[in-house]
């Protein structure tokens, strides 16, 4: 029998971890001489009380959904893909090549092409670490970290030496042609006399991210492959005896993970900057780790956690604008979330398990 009810595992523990993270974040804000309540109010106002704020929150959330799903899929096969950052960078390269060299008549076709480009490039970047893990036993965490740095160097080389337009100074590709312009929320939801989401980057990719959440849910819990993936993650030897090939599952899980991380670039590169820039990922690949841990690797949890982090990101930008609290506060909050929901999970879990066991004993 389980030590505690299922709802406690998926709802109570993340909430307690979140409260702990929030508590320590508040302490940090206090320690630098600002008021946590005022900071929180400012964050809510900047991120959620105006449509432009929502436009940023959902734009960031789109990134985090993709990277969160990427980490989650790998988690289900008990692998830690820390290389989402690199896979997203290379995914951006795929998006740029598709947008620059294929004349797209309409954005609806372009987004399909760009998604395919992003997914293929992202997956390709995950393929070598996956193969090395499956066939040569090299630790996936180390190889994906190394591949993040290699990706950054590669992207730098490609932008500076190959894709940079003649005469341009900054390391970035040329502007994408107008046929690839994705409708923003402003284009979609504004009426003639009521302009919504003014100047914010949220775009149609948000719905692509939601579709990805649904598809990942379907894949993990409703298909044979998903079952094999979870079985492998649960017990490698058990899966082996059931005839599941570890090599095949490792490689497939990482390909899916890399493809999802790569697709983040559709949002940043095609939807926002409309050209390939050097630091398009801005650490979103790593935030995917926090999002996946917080969302308990479930697509719906990832969706909620991504919105929460989107809010934190946008709120943090507002804080940096109006107070002396730098944007790095968000990095601290992110670290605390990873610490409490991931590494110190047992610290929260053990006392809770004891409590539930005691409760049950009293009932019996």
């Amino acid at each position, binding site marked *: 029998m389980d030590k505690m009810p299922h709802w406690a595992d998926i709802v109570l523990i993340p909430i307690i971890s979140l409260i702990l993270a929030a508590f320590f974040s508040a302490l940090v804000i206090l320690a630098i001489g600002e008021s946590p309540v005022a900071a929180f109010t400012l964050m809510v106002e900047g991120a959620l009380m105006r449509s432009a704020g929502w436009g940023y929150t959902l734009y960031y959330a789109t990134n985090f959904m993709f990277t969160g799903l990427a980490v989650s899929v790998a988690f289900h096969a008990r692998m830690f893909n820390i290389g989402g950052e690199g896979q997203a960078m290379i995914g951006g390269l795929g998006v740029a090549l598709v947008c620059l060299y294929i004349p797209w008549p309409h954005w609806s076709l372009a987004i399909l092409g760009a998604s395919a480009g992003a997914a293929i490039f992202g997956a390709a970047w995950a393929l070598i670490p996956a193969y*090395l893990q499956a066939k040569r036993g*090299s630790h996936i965490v180390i190889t994906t970290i*190394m591949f993040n*740095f290699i990706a950054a160097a590669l992207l730098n080389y490609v932008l500076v030496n190959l894709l940079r337009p003649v005469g341009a100074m900054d390391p970035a590709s040329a502007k994408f042609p107008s046929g690839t312009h994705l409708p923003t929320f402003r284009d979609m939801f504004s009426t003639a006399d009521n302009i919504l989401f003014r100047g914010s980057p949220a775009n149609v990719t948000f719905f692509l991210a939601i579709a990805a959440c649904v598809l990942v849910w379907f894949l993990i819990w409703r298909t044979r492959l998903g079952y094999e993936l979870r079985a492998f993650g649960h017990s490698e030897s058990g899966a082996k005896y059931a005839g599941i090939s570890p090599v095949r599952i490792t490689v497939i899980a990482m390909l899916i993970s890399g493809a999802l991380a790569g697709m983040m670039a559709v949002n940043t590169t095609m939807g926002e900057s409309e050209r390939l820039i050097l630091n398009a990922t801005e650490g979103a690949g790593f935030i995917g780790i926090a999002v996946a841990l917080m969302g308990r690797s479930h697509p719906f949890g990832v969706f909620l956690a991504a919105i929460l982090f989107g809010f934190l990101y946008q709120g943090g930008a507002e804080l940096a604008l109006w107070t002396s609290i730098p944007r790095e506060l968000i990095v601290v909050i992110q670290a605390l979330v990873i610490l409490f929901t*991931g590494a110190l999970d047992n610290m929260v879990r053990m006392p809770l398990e004891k409590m539930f066991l005691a409760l049950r004993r009293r009932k019996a």
Partner: protein
Amino acid sequence: MMDLVTILLPILDSTMRLATPLLFACLAGLFSERAGVFDIGLEGKMLAAAFFSAAIAYTSGNVWLGMLAGIAASIALSLIHGLASITFRGNQLISGVAINFLAAGMTVLVAQDWFKQGGRTPSLQGDARFGPIEFPGAAALADVPVVGPIYSELISGHSFLVYIALLAVPATWWILYRTRYGLRLRAVGENPAAVDTAGVSVIGLRYSAVLICGLLCGLAGAYLATGLQAGFVKDMSAGRGFIALAALIFAKWRPWHALGACLLFGFLQALSLRPDAVKILTRVDIPVQLLDALPYILTVVILAGFVGKAIGPRAGGEAYVKER
């Protein structure tokens, strides 16, 4: 020949300086991982130490106090890592990731609060920095061809911590292979149950390893901010913790090989700062980005096991559960 010396010598000289933080961090990782605790938080500990050593060195005007503060900050993060991965048996890799972000965020936050210079410390001068140590006769010998410049520039004239890093290599070797503590440390990374059966505390040993790791990362960070550079700037560790990790794997978790790997990776870093010299030496236009990526590429090749297989400590990454 003289030409070669005049080009190579400054590069080798900066190799020594760039290899030092790598070497400290690499040996730090070696202690931790040999005891069975993976540590991808070297980067974060180094960064935290860099900030606190620069901050305290600036406010007190004393580089030694700064160094101690850096070590203390790094050890504090080590204790968090120990708490998560030893006491609460959490995922060591996730804990390392959290520590890296914690350091990246906190250093800027505190720096902004203390100094209000956009997340950096004011630049350090005089006694707030580690100055060069001139070896006896360095100035006198400088004019002797070949040997003179090598002695006076390459060997002499580095700061205190460079020599400490070099001494840390034989010290680590001695502790690991010639003391009872070292034997137990290596055993606890391979087979903790055997150590436990022999009546030695697995938890105690692992905590001690994690603390040594914190101490060495603290020295790495202190050197970065008070020796190599004069003050702290945001994200100044710039991936060095991960290069050190790569060097550790490259060295297959052995101290002397770690020295070689760190010197090699330091040399690559020194080369990427001097693309002009690379062109003169090789007569080929090697992209700087390739030099930047080379430590990581080499590590992946080593990890792939095509050139000698890198196998880490067997119990690495797993928490020890006694009641099994």
